[in-house]
């Protein structure tokens, strides 16, 4: 009798195993390379965005921070950022605005603690960093962090998408990306749209250790894979760009270690599943966020605070395309007051070739600068 029960149990177990194998079979992950990335500024559109200019996004709260940019198929540039009484306060929400005909639309809330709590059926205390991406079908995707308890190191990721350019959104869906209570996966820098409709999302972990990660999600928004980036010192907020000529991905990271920091580098080579550490750039980093963009002409554009301490200087840097040597080409902000903050840059090249830079301006507003790439040429030559 016992033998029969054991045989029956083994048969049922084998069936369950087959079901699990079948399910995991569709999740085979191949190593990513730059060939998998849908290059920026290849979105077809008809509408020009703007000429060079200088704007501020609508003021949505006393304290604002962490902007992100995307472009819709019709050429409209869209931004999200968080605003409220202060970072981490219960009234902080993620806001969205659209840039059309040289002006930003009224800011609308696209994520709040209350909405996230209702959508994900769990207690949510605060929301924070958000990023935007547009897929090949023109759908707008929003990923943002939320916390139930503790500080940002306990944050988890939520995902929403919109078929109408951000007017209406799907219910937020929680992404599970970490083994201990799904704690500590955060976003800051722009995602890379992939040819298969999914995204490669630079994320970071800051519970117990601080390191960069690269999250791969499918077109339906579900997690496909997460790979850790190497870190010999505490690192945060990777900014990733493709290097098409070398079939590789380049990550530049914020240095969160002690003492004078510099921008740290990791690289994912073609055919490799592991990011490898490269020597840091000779550009100072005062534990502050950076932005990295591959331009349509193949060069790399970097926005950062090149200081040992403070965030009171923000400049743009260019690299020929390999990301090894950089030249400072434009000073965007400089203040003699150390407490002034021009931080958390975000970059986008629109389908007309214009370069959009957003950054936190003294924590009071998000500033928007539009640059003609021709100006970069002039500055580089001079």
């Amino acid at each position, binding site marked *: 009798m016992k033998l029969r*029960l*054991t045989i029956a*149990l*083994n048969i*049922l*177990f084998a069936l*369950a*195993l087959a*079901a*699990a*194998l*079948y*399910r*995991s079979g569709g*999740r*085979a*992950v191949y190593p990513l390379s730059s060939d998998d990335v849908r290059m920026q500024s290849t979105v077809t559109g008809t509408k020009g965005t703007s000429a060079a200019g200088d704007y501020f996004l609508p003021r949505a709260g006393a304290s604002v921070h962490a902007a992100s940019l995307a472009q819709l198929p019709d050429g409209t540039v869209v931004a999200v950022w968080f605003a409220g009484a202060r970072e981490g306060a219960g009234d902080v929400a993620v806001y969205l605005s659209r840039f059309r005909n040289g002006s930003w639309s009224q800011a609308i809330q696209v994520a709040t603690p*209350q909405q996230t*709590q*209702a959508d*994900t*059926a*769990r*207690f*949510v*205390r605060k929301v924070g960093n958000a990023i935007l991406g547009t897929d090949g079908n023109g759908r707008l995707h929003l990923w943002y962090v939320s916390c*139930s*308890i503790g500080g940002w190191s306990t944050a988890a990721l939520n995902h929403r998408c919109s078929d109408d350019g951000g007017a209406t959104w799907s219910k937020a*869906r*929680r992404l*599970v990306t*970490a*083994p*201990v*209570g*799904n*704690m500590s996966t955060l976003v800051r820098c722009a995602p890379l749209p992939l040819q298969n409709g999914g995204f490669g999302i630079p994320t970071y972990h800051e*519970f*117990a*250790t601080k*390191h960069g990660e690269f999250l791969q999600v499918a077109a339906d928004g*579900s*997690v*496909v*894979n*997460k*790979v*850790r980036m*190497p*870190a010999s010192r505490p690192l945060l907020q990777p900014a990733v760009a493709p290097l098409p000529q070398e079939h590789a991905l380049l990550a530049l990271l914020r240095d969160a270690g002690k003492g004078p920091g510099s921008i740290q580098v990791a690289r994912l080579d073609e055919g490799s599943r*592991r990011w490898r550490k490269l020597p840091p750039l000779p550009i100072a980093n005062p534990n502050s966020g950076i932005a990295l963009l591959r331009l349509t002409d193949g060069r790399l554009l970097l926005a950062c605070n090149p200081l040992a301490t403070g965030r009171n200087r923000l400049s743009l840097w260019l690299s020929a395309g390999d990301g090894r040597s950089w030249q400072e080409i434009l000073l965007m902000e400089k203040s003699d007051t150390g407490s002034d903050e021009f931080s958390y840059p975000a970059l986008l090249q629109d389908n007309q070739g214009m370069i959009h830079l957003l950054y936190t301006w003294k924590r009071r507003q998000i500033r928007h600068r539009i640059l003609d790439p021709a100006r970069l040429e002039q500055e580089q030559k001079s």
Partner: protein
Amino acid sequence: MTMQDFWGLSGSAALLTAAIFSLPPLNTRQGAKRRLAAAALFSLIMLPFMNGLAVAGYLRGITGDLSVTTVMLLLLFISGGNRVADNSRKALLILVLIEALVLYPLSVGPFPLDPYEWGYQPRGLLIAIAGAGFLSSRKYPAVTLLLLLTLLAYAAKIGESVNLWDYLLDPLVLCYAIGALLLKPFYRRL
């Protein structure tokens, strides 16, 4: 409510129900009355309470979603039955310790290797589970049954995670395994 939310809330409701039933005078209740009272309490915890969120939802925000292993152990405790032989229970907790030893030190620590990644493409992990399940079936059938339920839950994507580790293990069942296997014998000796 989605199946994933129902599963997540059920885990938290089971945890709170078990915590309440471990306190006197409920901890001495057995049989049908205990099961009925537990079912009533479980349902109450699942009902919308404040701001449209169930008590289970508040707890879920803190604990995250629980693994199949934890939820099954909680349900066994709540039902008051002692249907799992001691040797099977011990084998299961040893398995939990082994899994935790593989997963947590590397995935939480500052190491280049992250075993949590294996749970997204879990063929290797499934082979290890197959070995553990088939080897346990004769001597520790409860272990095989629990692994079977875990595999079914993963295949049906009953939870919001697509990572197999999240169905096998969570910090709560690790704490229980450490307490039951390592600390309890130590205290007994004192």
